[in-house]
């Protein structure tokens, strides 16, 4: 793993509705550096600002103050250069497009020629094992398959950075574990940098090289846990004592945060 910094978040604040009397301090003094090829999870209770931080990184929301640098440029520039791939909690596929044309979308927006983008999209569908479904429409797929399509879509323009906001949150536990493994396999084969938002302690531990724990009101980085379990991680990893230990470590850190701020 190289040490080139891909995302550098420096003392970022975000206040919603700053002037109104319902102002919410969603982020406060966030400092975070993410290196190339890392798999970083943002973990924390609901409302602690995980999504907001991700959206600020992706230039979907402007920060109130502070500085964000992505690949040595501004987040806006990075977005316009199409450095990002994004995956959300819901697949958000366009129901009027076939699976293939959904995956093509980012390339179409970027103006890539038809033949070329088709080939590229087919490759991505192979990667997520959905080649047989390219002519299907989203509603003909199960939720898990749809989410795999949306991952393919995010990867299709070979983004340097993959930003994922609870991409597996809507799936049941069995499907979820299966897709976690898939995700690691894809990450391994594409070598992108991943920032991954989740509520689930075990998910964060299983996937990440680093877990960033956030605390709410205002959203702050409450701690970082390095997860030194070796990759590739498999079904066996989940039953290993080292895994349980990490889970316990993260859980303890998180509960400390919760205790500090008053409970749910």
């Amino acid at each position: 793993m190289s040490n080139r910094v891909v995302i550098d978040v420096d003392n970022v604040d975000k206040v919603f509705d700053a002037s109104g009397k319902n102002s919410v301090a969603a982020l406060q003094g966030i400092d975070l550096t993410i290196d190339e090829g890392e798999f970083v999870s943002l973990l924390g209770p609901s409302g602690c600002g995980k999504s907001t931080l991700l959206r600020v990184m992706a230039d979907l929301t402007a920060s109130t103050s502070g500085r964000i640098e992505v690949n040595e440029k501004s987040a806006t520039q990075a977005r316009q250069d199409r450095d990002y791939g994004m995956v959300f909690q819901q697949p958000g596929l366009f129901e009027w497009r076939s699976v293939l044309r959904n995956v093509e979308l980012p390339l179409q927006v970027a103006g890539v020629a038809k033949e070329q983008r088709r080939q590229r999209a087919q490759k991505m569908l192979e990667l997520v094992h959905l080649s047989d479904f390219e002519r299907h429409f989203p509603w003909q797929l199960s939720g898990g398959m749809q989410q795999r399509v949306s991952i393919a879509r995010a990867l299709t323009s070979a983004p340097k950075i993959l930003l994922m906001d609870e991409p597996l949150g809507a799936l049941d536990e069995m499907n979820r574990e299966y897709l976690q493994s898939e995700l690691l396999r894809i990450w391994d084969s594409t070598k992108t940098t991943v920032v991954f938002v989740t509520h689930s302690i075990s998910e964060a531990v299983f996937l990440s090289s680093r877990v960033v724990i956030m605390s709410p009101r205002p959203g702050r980085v409450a701690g970082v846990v390095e997860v030194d379990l070796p990759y590739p991680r498999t079904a066996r990893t989940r039953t290993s004592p080292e895994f349980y230990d990490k889970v316990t470590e993260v859980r303890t850190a998180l509960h400390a945060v919760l205790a500090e701020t008053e409970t749910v």
Partner: protein
Amino acid sequence: MPVRQWATPFVSALGWFFGVAVVGTALWEGYKAFGQLTGDVFPGTDINLPVSTDDLAMPHTWSIAASLIEPVQRGVDISLGSYLVQQAMVTLQESFAGLLLGTLVGVLLAVVFLWFGAVRQGLMPWVVASQTVPLVAIAPMVVVWGGQLGLPAGITVAAISAYLAFFPIVINMLRGLQSPPTIQVDLMRSIAASNGQSLRMLRFPAALPYLFAGLRVAATASVIGAIVGELSAGTGNGIGRVILNFTYYYSSGPEKLYAAVLVASLAGIVFVQFIHLAEGLLLRRRPRS
């Protein structure tokens, strides 16, 4: 030949229509027979039936049907039926033009409202108010405006029809354009799509089902608009004018008015069914809700 799936609503609507025709005829004749039997009062009372059942107020269904094959007027060998269909076609052409115009204006307005929130805030109440203006009242003036601009009367009628049609289009189209979830909007932004791309690739396709919901309402409205417009347009054309004429001649041939009203209703219904058909065809790949 197996009926294609998108066509089934259309076919079943036709089936329904004939069902309604049979039941309607039976009710009409039943009520008439009842009234004739009791002398137009509820039996055993002197309370009048709400509608008297003589042949002037309620001609027999078969005389209405028979009038359709009789010549429409002295010395002309075209039947009332084909005359009415001809006239209904004129009205439908005006309605169609009105619907197109209304849809164009409605969609443009919806896009403007989407992009400029202040314009929406300022104009939306007046768009609602526009529909409470009695169309019949302004139609004659619209005709004058059309004449001043040198437009043929048919176009003026279409404009009046468009006035009623654009409203459901704006409302539904705006709702449709705003319907994509945040996730999809964010996705387009994250891949640096331009406003135009976002409109073309996301908002428009997402709005299509809403547009069609609006079109169905707008189609009915456009027929009403065309009929009301014809009352004032002075072209002498269209089923609206025919209804008016036959109203004038009601006492000498009530069945003609009924025939005209029936054909007008049929025209409106068929028109909307065509919208359904187009919808089924265009959205056949979408999930059924």
